[in-house]
């Protein structure tokens, strides 16, 4: 039947997409690429905190929509509070991501 063939083709396309992604993944680790770039400097403690913030940003902020760029600190504070409500991110994620994005 014509319809069945189309559905089979569509699901085959899905499977292909999944397979391609599994192989293509070897090159780059950060996907989707975070729009936020690192700012270096400060002590190792600062650096550790920045890395922790970046890790949490990458785990959370590109899941539902394209990861956003950095904004001015007071805007980040509102946005991250909104995402705590909307996306139910944890309090610790909110705190770390806020510091990281407001840097």
């Amino acid at each position: 039947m014509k319809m069945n063939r189309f559905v089979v083709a569509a699901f085959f396309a899905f499977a292909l997409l999944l397979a391609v992604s599994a192989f293509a993944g070897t090159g780059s680790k950060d996907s989707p690429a975070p729009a936020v770039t690192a700012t270096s400097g400060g002590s190792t403690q600062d650096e550790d905190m920045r890395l922790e913030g970046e890790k949490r940003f990458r785990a959370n902020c590109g899941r539902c929509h394209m990861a956003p760029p950095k904004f001015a600190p007071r805007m980040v504070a509102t946005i991250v509070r909104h995402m705590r409500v909307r996306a139910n991110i944890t309090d610790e994620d909110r705190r770390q991501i806020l510091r990281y994005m407001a840097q």
Partner: protein
Amino acid sequence: MCRLVQWSRRIACACLVALFVMCGLALHAQDDGFKPVPILTGSAAYFTRVTGGQFQNTPSVSPLLLMPFGDKWLLEAKGNYSDTFAKEAGDNYYGSTTAYGLGYAQVDYITKYVTVTGGRFITPFNIYGERFGPNWIRALQISPLCSPLTSGSALGGMLHGGFPAGSENVNLNYAVYFSTNNTHHLLATDRSTGGRLGFFLPRQRVEFGASFQQVLQLDRPHSSGAYLLWQPYRAPLSVRSEYVRSSGTKGSGYWIESAYRLSQISPLRRLELVGRGQQFFAAANLSAATIKKLGAFGKDTTQADLGLNYYFRSDVRASLSYGRQFVLGTNTNTNLWTVGMTYRFLMPLGPTGRSM
């Protein structure tokens, strides 16, 4: 009549004054040393849809106001406005219909484990309504067939939150809500209750969960659902899926969608490929009269959609999609095209601190 006009003027003035006072208070909110500023955000979009040869052009705008207070409060209000210009096949006439409404208007009180929300909000059932409602976020503009199976908006209260569940690598998130019945044409909600429980594994970027909803009016249907999201770190891929089953005459359905960003191929790195497959199953043993009444929900339907999204920036996107819908038993196959642009705006309503 004259008195009515006077009163509405007074109410409008009072609302304006209240808005200014709230803005003033909001500017003094605190958050870990950063004072959150009120924000006006939302999206504007223009889409052309061709459904089985019928054209629809729809410009739309959905503004969202975010007002933080103190270090625990947030007030959010979202409106929607759209105009649809439709053209029948073979006809030159474009009729226009305007639609507007209140997406949500809620107050949130945030604590470490519980956020208390009151007002009008999106029901926490599975993921599509809460996460992929805004058109700048959804990968395909056409909503899944099973979305209307559950009540989408609530007027009442909700308790929700997210916290680590004993381990760094498991975050639990939950929501329970209650909604009253409202028959206002712009704000209609059902009397209903329900909730959702989800687990997010940040190291794998996997989330899965289950939802339940019980409508407490008319034929009191209940729905249950499950969802899965996976975004591997190794590849720019997102896979998401939902399953919903409703009691009574409503039926069941599922969809699975994957989006692949071509970020490893430099000239195509802004392009995203999207595919979605879905099936809807009408409830069994429906009478001919019920099938007629249910319309689209009376027949088993299968649909596949393919789409392209081009990100000029993280907030400006052009989209194109093609889908084909098969309604079983009627031999009706429909082509569904969409093409358009979305723009997410974001502007502070006060001083923003150091600029980046």
